[in-house]
């Protein structure tokens, strides 16, 4: 049986880490500090994804092979994503109820889920035959659509993320 969501959110909020980030123990600056780490990490996530997306759209790095460019950029994306997810998780548990029931927060995760699905479709679609179009700019239509969707969804993630700050 699935335990009620409220109990789960409560147990997250009652952890020592959550109360420290909330400022209960006098560390009022912990929340902003974790948030700054989150902002730096998300800037690298979005910026690095954009470099590949712009190549897929034929707008940048036209002479670089797509496979080479993604191999160069992806370690940045995943490394920064791990930091963003971890710092985001710490921010979340400090006010788990507030965020869980916040509309922009939910839309942000919807955008991220769609961006993930888009990435998987591209990975198991046109990217499997990348050797055939590695140096073409602009690449095939499917790859261009994937690049455009990725840009739009990640911009959506950033707008929703900033919107959370105005509604919590």
């Amino acid at each position, binding site marked *: 049986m699935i335990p009620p969501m409220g109990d789960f959110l409560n147990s997250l909020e009652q952890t020592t880490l959550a109360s420290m980030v909330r400022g209960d123990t006098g560390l009022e600056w912990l929340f902003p500090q974790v948030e700054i780490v989150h*902002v730096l990490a998300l*800037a690298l996530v979005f*910026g690095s994804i954009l470099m590949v997306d712009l190549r897929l759209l034929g707008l940048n790095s036209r002479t670089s092979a797509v496979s080479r460019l993604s*191999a160069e950029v992806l370690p940045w994306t995943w490394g920064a994503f791990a930091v963003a997810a971890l710092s985001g998780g710490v921010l979340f548990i400090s006010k788990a109820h507030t965020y869980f029931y916040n509309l922009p927060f939910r839309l942000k995760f919807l955008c991220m889920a769609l961006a993930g699905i888009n990435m998987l479709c591209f990975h198991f679609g046109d990217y499997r035959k990348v050797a055939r179009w590695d140096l073409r700019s602009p690449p095939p239509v499917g790859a261009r659509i994937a690049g455009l969707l990725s840009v739009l969804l990640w911009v959506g993630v950033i707008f929703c993320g*900033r919107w959370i700050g105005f509604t919590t």
Partner: protein
Amino acid sequence: MVREWAGWIADTRLSHVFQEISWVIPVSQSMHIVCVAIVFASASMLGTRLLGFGASGRTVSQLVGSLIPWMYGALAVLLLTGLVQTIAEPLRQFVTPEFWWKMLMVICELLLTVWFARAVRRDPGRWDAAPTRPKGARLFAVVFVGLWVAIVVCGRLIGYTWSYYAWIFRFPAVHG
């Protein structure tokens, strides 16, 4: 004096328009973050390339060629959206020391970016080969990336410290 300037800006018609339309500040801030991402990720890529790790598939001049135009574009949007936020909430910015530190560092970074881009374009071969690269290249990379980090930190801090400074200096909150 800062208080008078802030008051004068806050009383302009443009400032009133920005304050009254509820989405102007959130949308401007979101665009600001999108452009921060472009600039910060590009700078990190260039900086680590100069330090000898990362983006090894491309030369320094190739990276400059593909990243610098986007950095300039993003910087223009950053200045514009920053201006919108300053016109909308001048007091918030002017009473906060982090804002002035940030502006000082932004000027330094603009000069560094223009200088670096021009130096690489003038003599790409010198920057592409590690042995001939100028001696200060590594120091430049550390300062270049470090200052962007500091700018992001100060930018985010303004949102937290401004109300504290406004209270210290007994400035009335413009709104919110």
